[in-house]
């Protein structure tokens, strides 16, 4: 399944093309932390994640109805 990963603050620096919005293939049941770490984004730089508008824990599994995940940075801009 595919979800939209939206990177805020300076987190797009970790993505090769520095996109702020990515379409990502994920497996149902995979946890958010693993998906984010795939891109080399340090967990310490994440303020929180919002899954379809709701704040979730990084260790929660991705359910099949998920459409978008906003990853908020602790530090933004440069």
């Amino acid at each position, binding site marked *: 399944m595919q979800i939209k990963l939206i990177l*805020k*603050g*300076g987190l797009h*620096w*970790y993505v090769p093309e520095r996109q702020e919005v990515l379409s990502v293939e994920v497996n149902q049941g995979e946890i958010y932390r693993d998906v984010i770490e795939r891109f080399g984004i340090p967990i310490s730089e994440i*303020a*929180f994640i919002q899954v379809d508008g709701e704040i979730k824990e990084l260790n929660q599994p991705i359910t099949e109805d998920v459409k978008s995940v906003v990853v*908020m*940075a*602790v*530090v*933004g*801009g*440069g």
Partner: protein
Amino acid sequence: MQECCGDAKRIKELDKRYNLHSWSAQGALDPTLVVKAEGIYFWDADGKRYYDMSSQLVNLNVGHCNKKIIEAIKRQAEKLPYLQPKFAVDVVAELARKIIEEVAPDNMGKVFFTLAGADANENAIKIARMYTGRHKIFSRYRSYHGATYGAANLTGEPRRFPSEPGIPGFIKFFDPYLYRAGIDFPNEEAASKYFVDKFREQVLYEGPQNVAAVFLETVTGSNGVIIPPKGYLAGIREVCDEFGIVMVCDEVMAGWGRTGEWFAVNHWGVKPDLITFAKGITCGYVPLGGVIVSKEIASFFDNHPLMCGLTYSAHPLACAAGIATIDVYKEEGLLENAKKMGKVLGQELEKLKEKHACVGDVRYIGLFSAIELVKDKKTREPIVPFGKDPERIMPKIINMLFEKGFSTYSHENMVLVNPPLIIKENEIKEAMKIMDDVLSEVDKMIQ
């Protein structure tokens, strides 16, 4: 409030007739009469309440009228309000101990107390020159280090100009301002390498044997909360070590919990040789600043005279306030709150960036943040050209915010959002709703 306000008209008349206000042509000024303040709010003479979303001048970190600090000042005023700096005084010794043992990076050894940030930087210039025997001083263009003569010469932005022709040997270099760098860096580290290499090249051209110090606002303040990219400060440190240059971090605005750390430099694990500070040490309850000096530089002055002095250096009232303020930061968990509420503020700022055509960039670290306004998100053309605002667009925006109860200030095309560190989540959201409404009006202005 009533007893204060009875004579509001007369106070404004006296102010207009006799008081010179900072950075302004005086004729058109009509300053608001403020009669009461508490926590993150203040009230005007008509009883209207304002969110203090700039913590006055990014100094009122603990909020208005903190009772512990007021009591400490009262106690000291009754006990010993003043002694000249050559004497040993309990509150001076204790504040210096607290700064070195509890707050500063572990390479720091002693403190020289000043009255504010500008003279902290003045004295840091002299300390670096005495220590190295060199005279040249580097600082950056998008910087503000104070308005006294030496500090104004350190300053890179246009508030430097009234103090020019400048002091010989003051050299400016470019900031790692990635939003306007105009270079497509593959990552932050590459950007840092570029800017550090350019700095090193400039040092070579100036003769490293002539360079005493480099001054940096660790996180640039009024010039737009420019956050150093990863590796930048470490790179500057390396160049300083290579050539024996004193690294000075100006933490006047970024220090004292503003970014969620005692000093912003802690975010990057870099240890400067000197730290200049002011603002949040007493949060403006009484003036105080200072220079924190490394152990190595402190020991140099064991047998070399420190040719610095101020009648009010280490003023006991200010030092008593400083001790109480550090205790308030700790007891009320304000560094932790800055980190926690910084996440809420960051989210609100990102929403504004997404929603409004006029918001080119938002930058935030802890409760230190700026909104950069543009005419066009794609071209990034600033809403006002650098150093000019002939149509007075930025004051209009600040007035619109103020009219709705949101007090802050702007610089160039930036609106600063730096609330007291005691702010709560609902208060951030309420205040940022006002910002949202005003930015909708600004969107119409740029259409």
